Structures are given as C-alpha cells and as structure tokens.
C-alpha cells in the first residue's frame, strides 16, 4: 500500500514537472542521470568483483575452517571420552577380579588357619589328657602312699598314747589291726 502510494506520488511528480526539477525534486533533473548511471555501474562492478573474488571466499574459508575445527575437536573429545570409558571399564574389571582374589585368599587362609588351629588343638588336647592321666596316677599313688604312712603314723601315735596312759606296751599287731579297721571305716570321710 505504502509503495503504491509513493509510486503514484513519484509518477505524478515525474509527469508534471519532469523538466522543471529546480522547482521541486532535484532527483528528476536529468542533467546528471547518465553520469550517475555510469558511476553507479562502475563502482558497483568494482565492488562486486572485489567482494566475490576476494572477500567472500576468505570469509567462507574462515567460517568453514572454524566449523571443521569445532567438528574435529568434538570428534577428539568423543574419542577421548570413549577411551576413558573403556579404561574405566577395564579398571572396574580389574577391581572386581582383585576383590574376588582377595576373598579367595581370605577364604583359603582362613581354611588353612582353621585346619592348623584344629590340629594344634587336638595335639594340645591329647597332651592335656596325658598330663591329666599322669596327674591322676600321681594323685592315686599319693593317696595310697599317704594311706600307708597315715596308718604307720597313727599306729605309732596309738602305741605312744597307750604307753603313756597305761604304762604298758601293747602288742603291735593288735594295734595295727585295730587302726586298720578304724581307718578303713573312716577313710572315705577324708579322702
């Protein structure tokens, strides 16, 4: 709409005072039209050649370079990422294996230790049993010995007491028999 309006204005202006431009628009004075056309074509041609031959290829090259560089860098980054991921996986596997080995070693050593402890325990128990048996034997022997010594001591004490009380010596064999009899009766009380 605006362009149509301005078009009509320009056309009326052109038709009314085409050759009386001093009165209105200097644009419609045809004196320098040829000159303007000539210089426009010349300047624009030079500009066009310079831009299309020199500057645009340069700018395009630069833009392409940047795009390629970014693409390459991204590729590199992706590659490195993949590598690091692979390494991390490897590391994980190694870690897992190591853990397995550790638990295996742990288990084995525990087993060995258990066995060792078991066998040592058995040996110790046997030793202890032997010792206990020995001690029991000694104790029973001591008991027997003590019995005989107690009897002889009590016999001598009895004969002494009787001698002191009555002034007579009693028959040793009868004393012995009596002591034996009494001690046998009461031995369970003390032993």
């Amino acid at each position, binding site marked *: 709409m*605006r*362009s*149509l309006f*301005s*078009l009509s*204005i*320009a056309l009326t202006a052109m038709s009314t005072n085409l050759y009386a431009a001093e009165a*209105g*628009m*200097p*644009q*419609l*004075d045809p*004196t*320098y*039209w*040829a*000159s*303007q*056309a*000539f*210089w*426009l*074509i010349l*300047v*624009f041609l*030079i*500009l*066009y050649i*310079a*831009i*299309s031959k*020199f*500057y*645009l290829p*340069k*700018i*395009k*090259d*630069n*833009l392409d*370079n*940047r795009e390629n*560089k970014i693409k390459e860098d991204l590729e590199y980054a992706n590659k490195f990422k993949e590598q690091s991921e692979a390494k991390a996986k490897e590391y994980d596997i190694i870690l897992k294996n190591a853990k397995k080995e550790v638990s295996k070693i742990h288990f084995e050593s525990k087993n060995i230790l258990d066995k060792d402890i078991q066998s040592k325990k058995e040996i110790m128990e046997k030793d202890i049993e032997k010792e206990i048996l020995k001690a029991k034997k000694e104790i029973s022997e001591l008991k027997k010995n003590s019995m005989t010594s107690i009897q002889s001591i009590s016999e001598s004490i009895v004969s002494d007491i009787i001698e002191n009380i009555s002034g007579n010596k009693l028959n040793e064999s009868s004393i012995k028999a009596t002591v034996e009899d009494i001690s046998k009766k009461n031995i369970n009380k003390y032993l």
Partner: protein
Amino acid sequence: MASNPMEQFTVHRIGPEIKIAGIDLSFTNASLFMVISASIILLFLFFGSKEKKIIPNKIQLIAEIFYNFVAKMISDTAGSKAKPYFPFIFSLFMFVLFCNMVGMLPYSFTVTSHIIVTLIMALFIFVAVTIIGFLKHGFKYLKIFVPSGVPAILLPLITIIEIISYLSRPVSLSVRLFANMMAGHTMLKVFGGFVVSLGILGGWLPLGFSVALTGLEILVAFLQAYVFAILTCIYLNDALNLHH
C-alpha cells in the same frame, strides 16, 4: 538555501567535465559518495577477513555476522539453487545499506535517494531475473503469469493482474527505496530548519523530533536495504523455483 529541504538532493559536478560521445559523465558529489560507500565496505571487509582467527576479533565477527545474515536470507527465501547469486545479493545489500548509512551523516549525500540510481539497480535485477527464468525454464517460465488452482472464468483477469504486477516490480522496488530515503531526509531537513527558525526558545521540540527521527531513519536505512535484498531474493526464487 537552508530553507529548501530539497537542496540536499542536488547533484553538482566535482572536478573537470567529462564528456564521452556527447554524454556528460562528470564526477559528481553522488559519484563521490558512491565511491566513499564502496570504499568503506571494502575497507571493512578487508579488515574483517584479514586475520583468519578461530576465535574472531570484533571486526571479523561483524563481517561474519553480515555474511551469515545474507546467506541465511538467501537460503530461507530462494533455497540452495540461489547460491551462485550470493555474491551479487551480498554486494547489493552491503552497497544499499552503506549508501543509506553514509547518507545519515550530516552534510553527506544519500546516493539511494535518487530515483535514477535505484531504478537502474531495480531494472538490472528485473532484467537479470527474467533472463534467468527463461534460461532455466524456457517458455515454461510464462507459467508464472498463470497461477494453478484458479477457476477458468477468473483466469484471464488473474493473468492480466499477474503480468501487471510482474512488470511493476522494478518500479515498486526502485520507488520504495528512493521514496523512503528521500522522505526521511526531507523530514530531517524540515525539522532541522524548524530548530533554526524557532531559535533557542522554541527550537527544543523540533530538536527532539529531529533526534527521534534520526533514530527512525537509521532503522529505515537498514530496513530498506534488507527489503531491497530480500525482494531480490524473492524475485530470484520465482525465477529459479517455478511454483505455479
């Protein structure tokens, strides 16, 4: 002199008169500002593409933004077939943009505010697009005037409208740019004149308008360059990809 807002558009000769075969081809202030705009573009692109850094510096970044901007514009509107015309559209966009922007500087001359300049560019685009269309599609290119899916009764009318709209392309393309630039600069001049004539007491209001208009005109300068380039892409798209 300052009171005439159209004064800024006058073309005058700089240096000697050059006449070739009776035609005056003298170097004018319009030519000077064409050369200045083109030189700024070339300098900018020279520094923008001098150092090929992976991480660009500021000027390189701006050049690359322009490149990507135009490349995206072409691929969005005309598709991948339009790639060979990328340098032309890039040059066109840069030239129109920098001419508009240089014209925004005080005491400068706006090349694109002259109908002859925009008309030559638009006519060149029109002729080139038509030739490309006929080269790519032969006489099938005339199908562009006969849209598909139109009832048979309306077809003659639609075809006539299509032909008129096709033929008015160079006029609308050139007048749009020319009229926008001329109108904006005339307005700036008029408000500038008000500032001077109203003096220190009443000049503040038009001065504020002037400042606001300058911002608007910078936007228009960019927008019209963009519109010029994108319409070229659309015409090119019609010629390359026959849709009708």
